[in-house]
């Protein structure tokens, strides 16, 4: 009888923990996305350009959409050989990496966020 009660209590705890985790994760995934660096620019560059794609990703309405858009931005604009054209390109690509890192943290995906943080290596270590 005592074993039955313990199993019941443990099952209840696991279920409660799952519910709390779901409750914590679901609202943040749908939460409105407000970028730190990607403020709307005062130009209207088309998609496919660095500025146009940066603005597009920065206008994401939710964290889920922001994650997808920043991933696409980095896929499209991270220089293939790590050689940049100028500071404009460098600052936009690095800002995109920080935005994606932050989105991962806000969504509770710490490992993915840490992966980007290590790649950015802000301390140059």
């Amino acid at each position, binding site marked *: 009888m005592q074993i039955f009660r313990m199993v019941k209590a443990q099952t209840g705890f696991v279920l409660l923990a799952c519910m709390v985790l779901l409750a914590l994760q679901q609202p943040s995934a749908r939460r409105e996305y407000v970028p730190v*660096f990607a*403020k709307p*620019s*005062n*130009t209207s*560059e088309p998609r496919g*350009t*660095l*500025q146009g794609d940066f603005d597009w990703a920065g206008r994401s309405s939710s964290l889920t959409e922001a994650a997808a858009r920043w991933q696409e931005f980095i896929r499209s604009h991270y*220089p293939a*050989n*790590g*050689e*940049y*054209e*100028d*500071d*404009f*390109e*460098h*600052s*936009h690509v690095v*800002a995109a990496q920080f935005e994606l890192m932050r989105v991962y943290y806000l969504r509770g995906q710490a490992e993915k966020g840490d992966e980007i943080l290590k790649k950015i290596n802000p301390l140059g270590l």
Partner: protein
Amino acid sequence: MAAIPQFLINPKTVVIDPGHGGAGHMGGSDGNHAVSPSGVLEKDMTLDLSQLVEAQLNNFGGNRLNVILTRDNDVNLSLAARANVARDNQADIFVSIHFNGFNGATRGVEAFVRPAPGNVNLADDTALAQRVLEAAFRAIHTRDAATNNRGVKRMNLGVLDDTALGNTPANHPCRACLIEVEFIDVPAVDALLNTGPNADQVRREIAAAIKNGILDDLAVHP
């Protein structure tokens, strides 16, 4: 033209690279990056300023100074092709001219060199970048104290690649840097350089400053 200065007894070659140009992507070079609030494109500003620098250098050095632009119209070249102009003409100096942009508020002038390893001329490149940066910063600061000197920074920039410039550990004649002349997405900078009543004059002053930075560098490498 005044008397030929000592450092031009041996003729020198300077390559000026107006960043971007044309449309689309070409070997690491985008047609355009920054755009001013009034709609002026970075690629047009880089060409205009480069041509002003070219004219002022020619005016100073005459036939002792061979000044070459990597482009003189609205075309795009790959980053390697731009640097190759320096290699093919055995240039003494290569300066790539860009304008910056980010959030409509950040201001300042900055210059870039390639870090080592991968740059056999790091010390000389840094000295060139410092001379060009300081001169350009002073010219802008005289007109607008809100600008900043953001310093000389190191970055892996394709246009400053040693091999493409023709530099090897045994023979490295070409000193090279890239300058970002202010953030043109800032309304005050747009007025200063494009739409204000003194914009033409300010651009000429910046060109003269870049010219002076280049000449100062040539003077210590006679």
